[in-house]
């Protein structure tokens, strides 16, 4: 039986009744790393430990965190750390858990990271719908301030830090880092053209690092364990642990923190209990709604949870760590339609191929999944998808849009085309004389 490896979920699992309170957090060791780091006073060492750990962003893109940090230009202040807590990738529910149930871990991560980066003002862009998460994060920040762990001259170190929690207001696109920055500045959440990258000119045109909640929550543990020790966990360049949100047709849906390198089968069948009632997995989405799909064959189920392996071998991504499992009773065209409806709704409208294309994909998938499909529909979808992501059928593909939302909407189309073309053509009556 596979097991979890709990690093960032250890405290919230061990202390289900008070993990979010200052008492519960400190009893579990929170803020010890921050105190040590401030006593030693060596920001470069924190950066070095993060580099040695091999930590890669847990929000979706998987970019090496230390590399992102290293892009901040020297000597330019103020600079900002922005925590991306706008969790909205369909079927991802790990950050909400970390915020609601271990907000002090996040606050410590923000403080340690800000110290390493030389930030005196940090922001948490929190999904607006997270009512309880907002309450608990605000309480944690207030308690940390009272305890002298935030504010001016923290623990006599000379380091100052204030945290502003900025609630979003219902826009998935604000999880994209430049749209998030726009939203923080009081604008519509529309992605910016890069360059300049946020590290050079981000929030208020100042150097800015945007990191995901899980990424930032991991930083104190890396410092505590030492970067090299952390890097011993995992597989190749996918080091450490990640939280996978498993949902859909499984016996025990939920968040599981596992060492990278575990297989999909161990995660889905072992930890999540597999598909109920002895049914088979028809397909699964391995990394959030933006990812292309995998299907219930041994080659896919026995693949390791390794960001590079799945990308290189199957053209899919681990993305936000959301694994959606669908059994043989589920119509893949219906799932594709609902995802297309999501992307059409959430397209910000800035780039024409996405604004127009997502709407057309949704309309065509609607009729296909509601008994009104036409023989040419799958080819039509591939054509429209190709206007957003040229070469969509063979990932990796190009994009005609500023941000990845448009191409994400094409992932389901590409997956239908790759795995379910025969089934769909039979339903649409392709090749049948009319």
């Amino acid at each position, binding site marked *: 039986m596979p097991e979890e490896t709990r690093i960032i979920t250890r405290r919230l699992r061990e202390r289900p009744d008070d993990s979010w309170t200052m008492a519960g957090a400190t009893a579990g060791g929170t803020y010890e790393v921050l105190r040590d780091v401030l006593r030693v006073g060596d920001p470069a060492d924190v950066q070095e430990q993060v580099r040695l750990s091999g930590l890669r962003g847990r929000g979706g893109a998987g970019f090496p965190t230390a590399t992102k940090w290293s892009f901040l230009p020297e000597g330019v202040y103020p600079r900002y750390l922005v925590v991306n807590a706008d969790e909205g990738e369909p079927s991802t529910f790990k950050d909400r858990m970390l915020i609601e149930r271990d907000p002090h871990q996040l606050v410590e991560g923000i403080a340690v990271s800000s110290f390493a980066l030389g930030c005196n003002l940090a922001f948490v862009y929190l999904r607006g719908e997270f009512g309880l998460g907002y309450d608990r994060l605000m309480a944690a920040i207030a308690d940390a301030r009272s305890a002298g762990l935030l504010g001016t001259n923290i623990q006599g170190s000379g380091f100052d830090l204030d945290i502003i929690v900025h609630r979003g207001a219902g826009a998935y696109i604000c999880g994209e880092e430049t749209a998030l920055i726009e939203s923080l500045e*009081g604008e519509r*959440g529309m992605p910016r053209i890069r360059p300049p990258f946020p590290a050079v000119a981000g929030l208020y045109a100042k150097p800015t690092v945007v990191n995901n909640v899980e990424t930032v929550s991991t930083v104190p543990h890396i410092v505590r364990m030492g970067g090299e020790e952390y890097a011993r966990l995992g597989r190749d360049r996918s080091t450490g642990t990640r939280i996978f949100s498993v949902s859909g047709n499984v016996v025990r849906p939920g968040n599981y923190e596992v060492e990278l390198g575990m297989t999909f089968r161990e995660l889905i069948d072992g930890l999540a209990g597999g598909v109920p009632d002895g049914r088979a997995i028809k397909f699964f989405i391995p990394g959030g709604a933006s990812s292309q799909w995998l299907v219930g064959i041994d080659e896919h189920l026995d693949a390791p949870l390794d960001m590079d392996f799945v990308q290189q071998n199957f053209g899919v991504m681990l993305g936000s760590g959301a694994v959606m499992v669908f059994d043989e009773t589920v119509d893949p065209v219906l799932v594709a339609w609902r*995802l297309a409806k999501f992307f059409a709704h959430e397209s910000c409208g800035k780039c024409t191929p996405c604004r127009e294309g997502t709407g057309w994909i949704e309309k065509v998938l609607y009729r296909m999944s509601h008994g009104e499909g036409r023989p040419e529909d799958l080819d039509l979808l591939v054509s429209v998808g190709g206007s957003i992501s040229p070469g969509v059928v063979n990932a990796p593909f190009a994009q005609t849009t500023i941000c990845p939302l448009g191409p994400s909407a094409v992932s389901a189309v590409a997956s239908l085309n790759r795995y379910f073309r025969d089934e769909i053509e039979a339903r649409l009556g392709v090749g049948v004389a009319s």
Partner: protein
Amino acid sequence: MSFFDEQHLARARETVARYPQAKSAILPLAHLAQDQHGWLSPEAIAEIAELTGTTPADVLGTCSFYTMYKRRPCGRLLVSVCTNVTCLVTGGPEVLEHLEDRYALEDDITVEEVECLAACGNAPAMQVNYEFHESLTPSGAEAIVEEYRRGDRTARTISGAPVDA
């Protein structure tokens, strides 16, 4: 100045002062306006513009992008039902349809379909004024809404802030 009451005005000014640039306060002030008033009215937009040194067109231009801002009056209880893929295969659309039918003629309750709420571990899910309710059935969801209605549960504001006792 006439929209915000004294207490909310003080919080609005504090919020504006915290940000390096005042325009950043548009989103939090729009939430604050809904906390007080139940929706984002033209009067609220005008006052947010004044407080943030922008124009009403700027504020409306920003706020109209975001689904949480209600630019016409809505019910005292906002019931947001997820129908994204995990909820789709676990009964979310049935919950939505039941609540839409049940409350179609009730002014104090607004039922809306929303995108993934990050509650897929216990799908299907909904929120009532941004409080999570999970593992729902159609009748169970209705029972929860009725508990709010009767006052057996304390609802947050329409923008999700806790209501101080």
